[in-house]
């Protein structure tokens, strides 16, 4: 443990957590190694691949380039915390129906980013979905199934709303 350890208190998937963290520990390692929430995947660890994307105070963020110590007082949501989230539920069904995943490594980050697109960009056409999802890399699917899954959820929501 670091000589510089700091005590932080934050909410992780709705549960209050108090922890002593070394400042150099990034949020991704904190979630995986201390909270044992291994749904958050770490790929590049420098902000490029998007596998580690989680929510901080409801907004998507890279957990690999955000330090846990900087999240004192914040609310963090990982893919595990989206079990009962309506949009994430629709997305999980659509990803499965549209072959939006294969090995699943990118999927937790994809779901978090896709949820943000559905909520923030209900008017998105397919090129806009691709642009909005460009920060999440997938080595398996070729993206077509991912884009179609997001399209399906956006269309269904727009139909139900209209």
């Amino acid at each position, binding site marked *: 443990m670091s000589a510089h350890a700091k005590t932080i208190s934050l909410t992780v998937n709705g549960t209050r957590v108090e922890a002593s963290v070394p400042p150099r520990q990034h949020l991704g390692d904190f979630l995986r190694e201390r909270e044992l929430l291994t749904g958050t995947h770490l790929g590049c660890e*420098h902000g490029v691949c998007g596998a580690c994307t989680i929510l901080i105070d409801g907004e998507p963020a890279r957990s690999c*380039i955000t330090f846990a110590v900087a999240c004192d007082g914040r609310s963090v949501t990982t893919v595990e915390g989206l079990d009962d989230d309506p949009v994430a539920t629709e997305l999980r069904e659509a990803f499965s129906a549209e072959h939006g995943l294969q090995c699943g490594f990118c999927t937790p980050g994809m779901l978090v980013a896709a949820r943000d697109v559905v909520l923030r960009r209900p008017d998105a056409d397919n090129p806009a979905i691709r642009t909005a999802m460009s920060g999440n890399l997938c080595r398996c699917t070729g993206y077509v199934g991912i884009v179609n899954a997001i399209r399906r959820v956006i269309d269904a929501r727009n139909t139900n709303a209209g």
Partner: protein
Amino acid sequence: MKAVDFDYAQPATLDAALELLSREDVMVRPVAGSQSLGPMLNLRLAQPELLVDITRIAELQAIRLDGDRLTIGACVTHARLEDGDYPDVTRGVLPSVAAVIAYRAVRNRGTIGGSLAHADPAADWVNVLTALGADVVIAGTGGRRTVPMTDFILGVFETALQPGEIVAEIHVPALSDRARWGYYKVCRKTGEFSHATGAVLIDPARGVQRCVAGATSGKPVVIDGPALFEGGCTEAAMAAHLAGSPAADDPIALKTHTVALKRAIAQVMS
């Protein structure tokens, strides 16, 4: 991919932050969104002993209108500038540029002040705020000074900031209703850093006719006056303007910079 064992402070006031940043007994560095410093720490390109997180300082989060200019606190995020919850004196330039920086997950934490202080020649604000004629307000324990963007960015990752100083706020002048703006980035992949950036501002009310060539492996190249408009943006002209930068001697880079600026110019001429 793990950072060195640094210490960390999260002061609530600017004075407390500047006090910590003026310490000479440790290698100290400010951190804002950590979207550039985070990767550098993980790769151990940066090995500070103390990080001073400046994002909880309320005044650095503020956006306000001072007369006809907009004052943006250093810790305002790209996402907030994208979403536009402020009186936008630039008639859409700020939100449209913010929206094409990296990806939303990065924009939610990355800040305008961090972007300027990092001074990557390919960064959006580095080039756009130069084209807009913005000023940077620098704060240190000795007080504040205001520096025009053209004197703030000195080179690749090099700024006018002295040890212990931070970017406190940015002053963005208002554009008139006759102003026209063009912006084009050549990127290999959406959201990745630009290989050539063209930014163009014509504002007759302020007498501005400005082209900026960015991502040139040096500070932004400012070309004022009408020369490049109306077909003047040729490779030969660009070679002269980029003289001294590595881009001028590389035929591919020269072509890429010419294309970026030409496309930005086309947006204001159309």
